[in-house]
């Protein structure tokens, strides 16, 4: 069995305080190359912050700061 250390939520640790749709550079860390929101089991974000994060990502998508999808074209 491989036991891995539990990831700590980046937002709970107090280092990242500016969780906002205007801060698209930060939100980019939580979407895949295809533009999908990364699940919290991968990113280690806590449930509360994942809800906020998802909401802010969706706002940023509305105003074209983040993509809805990234296709090959």
């Amino acid at each position: 069995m491989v036991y891995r250390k539990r990831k700590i939520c980046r937002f709970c640790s107090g280092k990242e305080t500016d969780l906002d749709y205007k801060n698209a550079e930060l939100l980019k860390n939580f979407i895949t190359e295809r533009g999908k929101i990364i699940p919290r089991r991968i990113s280690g974000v806590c449930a509360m912050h994942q809800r906020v994060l998802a909401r802010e990502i969706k706002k940023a998508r509305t105003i074209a700061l983040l993509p809805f999808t990234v296709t090959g074209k």
Partner: protein
Amino acid sequence: MKKLSHYELTTILKPEGGMDAIRQFAERVDGIIAGMEGKIVNVKFWGEKKLAYEIKKNLKGNYVYFNFVADGPTIHEVERNLNIWEHVLKFMTIKLDNKANIEELLKSAEGIASLTDKEKKNVAPAIVEETAEEEKKEEVTVDNKAYNEKLQESLSNSEDDEDENVEL
């Protein structure tokens, strides 16, 4: 007495006309808000940004951000006008949840005087961003190579390495 709330409005304009067009646009929005007893706290120009997706055949847009205090019908009127103006590509109004601070905000309100030309400052970060993206792509390809090597190693090794496969 009108019930005032704190709002923020982000608008995307067509990347034409330069700073004069942006100033003119801000004045028009201010005219509507001020005409309905609202007050603009500050206005920011985020610069010409690349859009994440195409809007009305435009790949770039000028972002103008308004932070203001107003009541519900004002929002309706502002949005009605934004829909009419052709140089507005898209907009989003968000109600901010801080009812207690409204009087303070009204006191500290700067109005459209806070609009400054930030385009020059924004040019440098944009270039940095592009190079950073290129670097990321390179890293990904390197990672893939390393991954493949590891995979082959683990495949060629004996039974004991099953745990390693799981980890990969």
